[in-house]
């Protein structure tokens, strides 16, 4: 008997689509979910932290301190909303979250600068809010750096060496977070929706007893698996295209990649996700277990893949774990090709890694499927 009969395969695919259509809520979620995710991630994670409510305590009251305060005011990162006269007034402002940042200029700052000394400027950030704490210090550092740069270049006018060192941000000069977020999002949404639906596919049939019925028909195992995978793969392709288009047209994310690397990377990654979903579906005994396992897999993956938090900032003991996450490679491929225009040759390591994962996962899924049926 031919293990792969095209007519039977087509009918199986058709059956899956019919089943999907029966549950209108499920179908609408499959299409609404990616859009909602894109909006949330695009606008929330991609939001650049600006206009932080800031308090300024100026004990110095000199031209220098006013210049510095003005530099903070004219930066889009800080909105100077409070000007308390004493440092003790800062505590209630922070406690009630009315300010997130405070700048404290000590008495004698100008005098110290005129003597040629280094004067410290106090920058207080709200440590209860991680993102603010991590970015506000950096922004303040930049404001102070450009303040210093002006003083140094003024001093160099009297003769002497000048350091002309530009700091240039490549590939994403405006440092828009959305530009890095959307390429990663294409892969992440793909993973979430494929796994959420796929993990239910086989376990549902077993719960209803239709799996046994299926197996006494002439349908081969290969046909059955292919018939299960194809509809979800097709849906995933539609979803991805949709997300990529919204990202390009609505969020204005640049696309410098080529039409070989991106689809190749996405396809390989899609197979790892489908394979994992299938595997979960085969291991679980009930639909709820499948659901839980999917969640259990997805949460660490979102954290460790570098999707939300850069891998560089993770402790050295954690970093080796990230190599076991297919999403990690997909993120590198997509970000590099969207933003930098990297090609297949630059990214072959990641592509091969995803291929290996896909083969491994599908291999395990197929053997597991055989065993499961003979149980």
């Amino acid at each position: 008997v031919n293990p792969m009969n095209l007519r039977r395969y087509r009918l199986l695919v058709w059956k899956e689509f019919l089943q999907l259509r029966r549950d209108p809520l499920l179908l609408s979620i499959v299409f609404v979910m990616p859009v909602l995710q894109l909006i949330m991630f695009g606008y929330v994670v991609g939001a650049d932290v600006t206009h932080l409510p800031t308090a300024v305590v100026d004990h110095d009251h000199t031209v220098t301190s006013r210049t510095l305060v003005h530099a903070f005011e004219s930066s889009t990162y800080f909105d100077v909303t409070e000007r308390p006269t004493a440092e003790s007034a800062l505590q209630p402002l922070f406690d009630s979250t009315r300010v997130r940042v405070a700048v404290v200029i000590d008495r004698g700052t100008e005098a110290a600068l005129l003597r040629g000394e280094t004067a410290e400027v106090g920058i207080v950030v709200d440590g209860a809010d991680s993102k603010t704490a991590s970015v506000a210090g950096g922004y303040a550092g930049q404001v102070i750096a450009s303040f210093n740069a002006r003083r140094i270049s003024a001093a160099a006018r009297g003769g002497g060496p000048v350091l002309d060192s530009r700091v240039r941000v490549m590939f994403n000069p405006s440092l828009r977070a959305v530009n890095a977020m959307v390429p990663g999002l294409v892969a992440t949404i793909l993973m979430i929706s494929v796994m959420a639906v796929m993990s239910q596919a086989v376990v549902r049939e077993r719960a209803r007893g239709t799996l046994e019925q299926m197996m006494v028909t002439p349908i081969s195992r290969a046909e059955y698996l292919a018939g299960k995978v194809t509809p979800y793969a097709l849906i995933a392709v539609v979803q991805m295209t949709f997300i990529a288009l919204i990202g390009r047209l609505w969020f204005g994310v640049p696309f410098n990649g080529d039409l070989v690397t991106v689809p190749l990377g996405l396809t390989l990654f899609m197979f790892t996700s489908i394979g994992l979903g299938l595997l979960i579906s085969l291991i679980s005994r009930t639909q709820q277990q499948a659901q839980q396992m999917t969640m259990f897999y997805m949460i660490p993956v979102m954290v460790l893949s570098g999707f939300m938090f850069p891998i560089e900032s993770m402790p050295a003991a954690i970093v080796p774990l990230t190599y076991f996450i297919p999403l990690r490679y997909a993120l590198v491929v997509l970000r590099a090709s969207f933003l930098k225009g990297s090609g297949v040759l630059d990214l072959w390591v990641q592509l091969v890694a995803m291929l290996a994962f896909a083969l491994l996962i599908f291999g395990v899924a197929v053997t597991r499927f055989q065993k499961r049926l003979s149980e």
Partner: protein
Amino acid sequence: VGAGRRVGAIARKELIHISRDWRILVGVAVLPLVQLLLFAYAISFDVRNVPTIVYDSDNTAQSRSYVDAATNAGFFHVTRYVSSGSEIDGVFDRGEARVAIVISRGFGTAISSGGTARAAVLVDGSEPNSAELGRTYALALNNAFGRSALVSWSATRGASRSIGALEPRLRTWYNPERSSADFLVPGLMVVIIMIVTVQQTAVTLVRERAQGTLEQLLVSPLTRSELILGKVLPWVVLGFLDTIGITAIAIAIFNVPLRGDISVLAVSMFLFVLCSLSIGLVISAIAPTLESANLVALLVSFLPGFMLSGMAFPLASIPVVLQGVSYLFPGRYMVEIARGVFLRGAGWSILGGQVLALCAYAAIGLGLATLLNRQRV
């Protein structure tokens, strides 16, 4: 008295369901703790050792001291020296380094003779968080180097010239050591509780309906609100136990301070568990099948939990419409309370409003769930 017994019976039935499936117990007891450990260990907010390449076409004492100054802060970590400018593109394309320091020929001569020394720091912007920090460090480096070059040049000419400079002295209030556990755990426990409870209750009514047992329950003397109450009760207990476990681990293992009024935390956590359960029950009342109940639960607990609670991303910087949406989910109030109690040392006077909001939310949510369930059958 009869009502209490009936509610108790339903609650016991639920507990038996739960204890039958050890995987649910794992999901409720072990998963939250694993997640907590993972997040608290894996996430840190201080980027260090960013892979950096150097293209030094000058190769003098001065250019080397510029590179040394760059690496001293611990942010730039030089992994390689390249010998041509064209190599830089390839390194960036393959993602082998995120920063390139380029020093032009004549750098050393310019520094010692009072000319203009040219250099550049290129930062890969495809990872905006570290790029932003890279820019900050590079600007500070340029200042420090330029200033000391000017001062020492003047010194060699016998003229003492002094240039003052400002230096930021960063203090992180509520978390002076910038420990990532302190940053994360208060928000994280809210998200974890939300995910666990919404997921588990979202399927309870759908399952009863699918198995036909809901009809059986409804012909019994049980009223609908008793049914909802009985369904919720075991999960309230489990959710609350989870909270206690997470809090204990946070304090004992991660040394997260608990500075505020613990009674605020206990009361609001109890209310928050009720809120999440009511969301789960509303889903359960409207979802036609188990799959869609699961998916909606995933969508509702996971996304707003992470994104719109303020746990990882400050709500003030997101668009106004989404800020409005964030009020529709209880996570936002609870994250505020948890941070307030753990880190800011807040009590009833500051957080009272948030606790009231949770209270109202729980009442409305449970009422809505009862109502929707009534319409459904």
